[in-house]
């Protein structure tokens, strides 16, 4: 088996840097009192060093941005990296807080050799803006040690790798039970010196734990690894270094998240029509923005356009600290090959894109379609339903319209109906009106709360307009529609 370990020495820092448009001095601090744990080049230029206390760092550079280390965030980032690595290896193990172990031996044939796999991995993670060290080895622990000590080698040659490993000092070897210190006192410095000692002696002196560790290191003992399993939703979070006050400032970091989403969707042949964007504020409950598209999307440009339209009309209640993107409604990509009728299909997708845009900007409530109900009461004979072009609804939709002739036959729609219906009946003065047709008595709904008893007439107004009005049981006149 061949193992590949990816070590991300400054994962929390890289995560923050990804949200930046232009580099600015940045440190990540940990411990109490806060001390600099990670720092970027800009901060280093100002003379800040690792381990420096935060107050000293501020003295050196007052405009420094400092963020506290957040272990939960680090584990989310690590998982997102695992998802990224998933396209290169099927067996992935998380080594929190900053490492990934990939079993690559079984992938060599697919990638046509280790070199190609190595290069692709290298390009992938460099593009994502992470600093990392790669190493391959024949056992998980040795891969980890080589990678963490930047002794990585793109090779599957056991001897070559063994030589590299032997050169590691015992302090670098992460021996259990503080064995490194005890070895140092015994005058042992490198791993080679330790492994050349007889195992029985070593067991007597250091206990079984060290010998098990050394056996795992050399591959003599089994070292089972727990495989990482991909969650069935997409979740990413980006933290801002400075608080963002304007909604437009979110678009840049969002673009990166959407590109990741797009890659994710493409990789798994999925699409989605719902995005949940959460804006996290310092002293305000988070804002949730649900973005729906009429069409299943997986291109980041389309998604960004939708987000932009939706966010543009959104006012944020407080400055933002972070943005998260969650997608849990994933659908398999409907792959269609081009054919003679491609143009027709293009039209269809064009309409869905249009509706998607309208939905995003105007909101779901603004877009409706008409429906006919088999009802005698004029208010209930029609219905407005939210427009949705998904095939399921469309089918339902057509069935309502195709059922119309039967309704006609059953006699519900014999009388002429007006094209305009007033939202609510409007009181009418029956004097000076000419009654053209009628009455049509509609007495219905005695079984529910909205019983009506009305005589409907076509009414001509003095200025020539034709209306549809009725007289109710009390003798009051109302206008309910226009023969427009």
């Amino acid at each position, binding site marked *: 088996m061949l193992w590949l370990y990816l070590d991300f020495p400054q994962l929390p820092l890289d995560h923050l840097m990804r949200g930046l448009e232009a580099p600015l001095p940045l440190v990540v601090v940990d411990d109490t009192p806060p001390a600099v744990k990670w720092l970027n080049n800009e901060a280093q230029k100002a003379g800040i060093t690792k381990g420096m206390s935060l107050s000293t760092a501020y003295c050196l550079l007052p405009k420094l941005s400092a963020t506290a280390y957040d272990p939960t965030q680090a584990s989310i980032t690590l998982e997102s990296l695992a998802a990224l690595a998933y396209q290169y290896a099927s067996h992935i193990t998380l080594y929190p807080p900053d490492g990934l172990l990939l079993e690559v031996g079984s992938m060599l044939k697919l990638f046509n050799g280790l070199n190609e796999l190595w290069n692709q991995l290298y390009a992938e993670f460099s593009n994502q803006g992470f600093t990392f060290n790669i190493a391959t080895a024949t056992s998980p622990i040795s891969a980890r040690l080589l990678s963490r000590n930047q002794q990585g080698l793109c090779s599957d040659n056991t001897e070559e790798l063994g030589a590299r490993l032997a050169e590691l000092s015992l302090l670098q070897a992460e021996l259990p039970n503080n064995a490194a210190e005890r070895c140092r006192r015994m005058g042992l410095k490198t791993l080679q010196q330790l492994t050349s000692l007889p195992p029985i002696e070593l067991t007597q002196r250091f206990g079984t734990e060290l010998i098990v560790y050394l056996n795992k290191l050399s591959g003599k003992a089994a070292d089972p690894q727990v495989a990482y399993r991909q969650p069935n939703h997409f979740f990413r979070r980006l933290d801002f270094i400075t608080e963002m006050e304007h909604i437009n400032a979110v678009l840049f970091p969002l673009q990166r998240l959407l590109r990741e989403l797009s890659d994710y969707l493409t990789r798994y042949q999925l699409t989605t029509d719902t995005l949940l964007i959460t804006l996290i504020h310092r002293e305000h409950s988070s804002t949730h923005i649900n973005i729906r598209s009429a069409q299943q999307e997986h291109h980041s440009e389309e998604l960004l356009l939708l987000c932009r339209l939706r966010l543009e009309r959104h006012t944020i209640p407080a400055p933002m600290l972070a943005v998260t993107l969650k997608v849990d409604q994933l659908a398999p990509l409907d792959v269609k090959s081009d054919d003679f009728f491609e143009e027709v299909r293009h*039209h269809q997708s*064009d*309409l869905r894109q*249009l*509706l998607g*845009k*309208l939905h995003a*900007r*105007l*909101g779901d409530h*603004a*877009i*409706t*379609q*008409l*429906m*006919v109900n088999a009802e005698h009461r*004029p208010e209930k*004979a*029609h*219905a*407005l339903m939210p427009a949705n072009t998904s095939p399921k609804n*469309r089918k339902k*939709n*057509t069935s*309502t*319209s195709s059922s*119309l002739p039967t309704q*006609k036959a059953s006699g519900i*729609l014999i009388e*002429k*109906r*007006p*094209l*305009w*219906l*007033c*939202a609510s009946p409007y009181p009418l003065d*029956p*004097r000076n*009106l000419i*009654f*053209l*047709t*009628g*009455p049509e008595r509609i007495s219905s709904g005695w079984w529910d709360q909205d019983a009506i008893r009305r*005589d409907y*007439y*076509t009414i001509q*107004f003095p*200025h*020539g*307009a*034709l209306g549809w009005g009725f*007289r109710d049981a009390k*003798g009051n006149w109302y206008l309910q*529609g*226009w*023969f*427009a």
Partner: protein
Amino acid sequence: MNNILNNLIQNAQIWQAGQFKDRPVKAIASGWHTLDHFLPGHGWPQGALTELLCDTPGIGELQLLLPAMKSVVDKGRYIFWIDPPFIPYAPALAQHGIDLSKLVIIRPDTPQEGLWALEQILRSQHCGLAISWPKKLAANDIRRLQLATEKTDSIAFLFRAALCANQHSAAALRLKLEPANNALGVSILKRRGGWAVRQQLINIHPPCNEQNVIAGPWSNKV
């Protein structure tokens, strides 16, 4: 002097009546022979804005558009209604043979959003017909909409108040709708390649006589 004239023509600031007679205008028959006779291209122009100036509802303003709506829907294209003043009544539309699944009603929260939606719809290849009742409309908005429409072959109707008749508008066709003698009076205020046409009567409502009305108990009160 000649230069100035040439410039004007090249900038498309003015149109020449003679040019438009030669150029075929894409149009969908309005279904009313009286009207088709006067309209350039013998129908509602496609890829152009049509303004309908109308103050009172119920004079047949929608029935005027029904034949065009039907032919658009029958071709499988969509009709968008943007901010209609009343509810388009589904049973009536169905009675006129219009496939309801091809109608989309848009109710924007603000007039700006309505204009934005209309522009997006007009730019889309898929829209067959758009009817809009804009609340606020500046001259450059109309120009923008007209340009958006020109790229496609959809028909766009803008319903506006009769008051706007005196205002300048970039719309290709402007009609004024008024009730007249139990019919719909249509006067063409502006058309491409022709002069304005005075009121034409279109018999929208089928004739009905008052004998149809059965006198109820209320008749003595009226």
